[in-house]
């Protein structure tokens, strides 16, 4: 197994996961006429206390991957191992316990909090559902996490509409933390917030990680946020990882042409910093009928004939920095006969 994370015992181990959604046709006898390959053979690990950042455009499968880890969708193929246990084999009490050890924070704090529940019940909900903690202790725990996220515990009996966007996101974070999770999925945690609030929430997430030893799976399209929070970064395109390495390597020395375009398209914060401008043409193809060979080749500025026919493998190109691109000989699958390029080792 290629352990991206330096630690020998990963907290989360995603092994060659696939998720296909059938596309049905027909009125009486509905049968699948094709599959949307939302996640197609993705593997990565997250070590305790580390953050893995996933970047990519909408429709690349980032959020589907998060749903698979949260067990909100069944896997089509592959395995997700959490603390040495395969998630597909969980049931009953162990499943209930797992749901408590994984928290989630979603993008929009206006739709992710029930307007009819008091903050106390929202934040205490994971404990009520996944444990048999008595009510008194739940209330103590709610006061404790509200304090940790910077909210006054005295506001626990208020409703979400009484809070601003930034405060609501703090409530959502408190809910994710209340059942003592080991892993928290952060799906675009700051993109719905105002600019002057974002930095507060990003700093809070980092401080909580340091204090509580949490692992994060961070999904975000703002590359500044990803660079700030992540130890490792994976770049997804059309359901597959095309590059994976430490945050620093991906941002300072991107190898895949798509990563380069993505970094260039993410606008610079400072206009005085000169940047290479790569505007790639075309749009993301349909995942229903992805291109043969490398899925990026129709838009790739460096495309070669081989890219059209042979799918490159995600393999280490330079120490630990993995990339799936024929520009790097390690990506050529074994046995593939490619004119001009030697077969892989």
């Amino acid at each position, binding site marked *: 197994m290629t352990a991206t994370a330096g630690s020998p015992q990963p907290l989360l181990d995603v092994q060659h996961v696939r998720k296909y959604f059938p596309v049905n046709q027909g009125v009486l006898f509905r049968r699948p006429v094709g599959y949307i390959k939302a996640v197609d053979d993705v593997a990565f690990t997250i070590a305790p206390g580390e953050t893995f950042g996933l970047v990519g455009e909408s429709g690349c499968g980032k959020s589907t991957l998060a749903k698979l880890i949260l067990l909100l969708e069944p896997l089509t193929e592959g395995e997700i191992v959490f603390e040495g246990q395969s998630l597909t084999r969980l049931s009953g009490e162990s499943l209930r316990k797992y749901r408590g050890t994984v928290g989630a924070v979603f993008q929009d704090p206006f739709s992710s909090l029930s307007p009819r529940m008091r903050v106390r019940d929202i934040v205490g909900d994971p404990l009520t559902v996944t444990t048999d903690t008595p009510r008194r202790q739940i209330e103590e725990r709610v006061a404790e996490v509200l304090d940790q996220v910077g909210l006054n515990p005295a506001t626990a009996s208020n409703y979400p509409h009484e809070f601003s966007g930034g405060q609501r996101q703090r409530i959502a974070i408190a809910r994710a933390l209340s059942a003592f999770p080991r892993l928290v999925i952060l799906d675009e945690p700051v993109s719905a917030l105002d*600019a002057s609030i974002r*930095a507060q929430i990003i700093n809070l997430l980092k401080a909580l990680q340091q204090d509580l030893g949490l692992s994060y799976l961070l999904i975000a399209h703002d590359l*500044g946020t990803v660079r700030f929070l992540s130890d490792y970064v994976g770049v997804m395109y059309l359901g597959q990882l095309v590059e994976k390495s430490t945050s620093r390597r991906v941002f300072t020395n991107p190898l895949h042409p798509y990563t380069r375009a993505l970094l260039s398209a993410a606008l*610079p914060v400072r206009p005085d910093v000169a940047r290479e401008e790569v*505007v790639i043409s075309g749009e993301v193809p349909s995942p229903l009928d992805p291109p043969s060979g490398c899925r990026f080749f129709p838009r790739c500025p460096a495309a070669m004939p081989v890219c059209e026919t042979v799918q490159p493998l995600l393999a280490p190109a330079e120490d630990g920095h993995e990339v799936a691109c024929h520009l790097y000989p390690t990506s050529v699958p074994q046995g593939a006969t490619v004119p001009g390029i030697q077969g892989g080792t």
Partner: protein
Amino acid sequence: MTTFPSDAGTSLDAPSSPSRLEVKDLQTWFYTGRGVVKAVDGVSFTLEPGETLGLVGESGSGKSITCLSILRLVPEPAGRIIGGEIWLGDTDLLQLSRHEMEQIRGRHVSMVLQDPMTSLNPVFNVEKQVGEGSMYHLGLHGSGLKDRVQQLLRWVRIPAPEVRANDYPHQMSGGMRQRIVGAIALSSQPSVLIADEPTTSLDVTIQAQYLQLLKDLQEEHRFSMIFVTHDFGIVARVCDRVAVMYAGRIVEMAPTRELFGSPRHPYARALIHSLPDPDTEVEWLTTIPGQPPSLYDLPPGCPFAPRCSEAMDICTQEYPPTFETGIAESGAAGPPASHTAACWLYGDKSR
């Protein structure tokens, strides 16, 4: 009373004469059950022909209402433009009748909205929607209109326009839909284009394509542009000058490089420094304490004072006027650009 020529006979490829847009002390207030919201309260700026002005601010800072006021599209009766002047060339748009305003809107000033999914009508095909402006403002019909639509679609780089013209919005991708909206906005060759967060609903690589397209179109058709956004990265890429808004007012205005290089207003300074930068690694981000004020209940004096690290006594008593904070380096050509800030730090401190 308008000084614009009758449009029916205007040549297709001659842009409407480039005009300077000047907004003076604009006030747009909303009268609601909970009180008066001063959404825009004393906004002034000029937009020179061919220039791109960025309007940046958080939600509720008044940037969109400023744009809607220019087009006189403020939702009535709750919202009303209660004061100010908006000069396009030598016409004050606020003095025009409803009918006269219809000759300006879409003809001389047009707008691209945020979400092409909602700004396009799902039940009409592209040809109908793109051609509407040319039919109304330029008096085209029949095959002339058809040709015009295809020309517009070519302008915005729609491949195979003769086929695509018959498509409906749902048959197109998000990036292509937003280009259709661009074609509609350009259909009468306006002198001012207002783009209200046009790329927020697009993916980053598509956003880069769209910004490039807008820049190219501006070069080809010489319109000036007001670009509303909350994203400083976009400002850095497309704008010549920037106005930063906070709680209904412009707090700082400067050429783009100047603003990033030496922001003057404490709000602009804090905001720029709080952005996580993909090009650098830092231990912690600089934060702005507190949250944006409620417009129902603005504090007296400067609305940023409660969050400001440099607040003085006067800041909580009196709203600062706009001060010139030193002449900026002039651009490649033209007069030296000014750099202004509405902050007492730059006023006469003996007051």
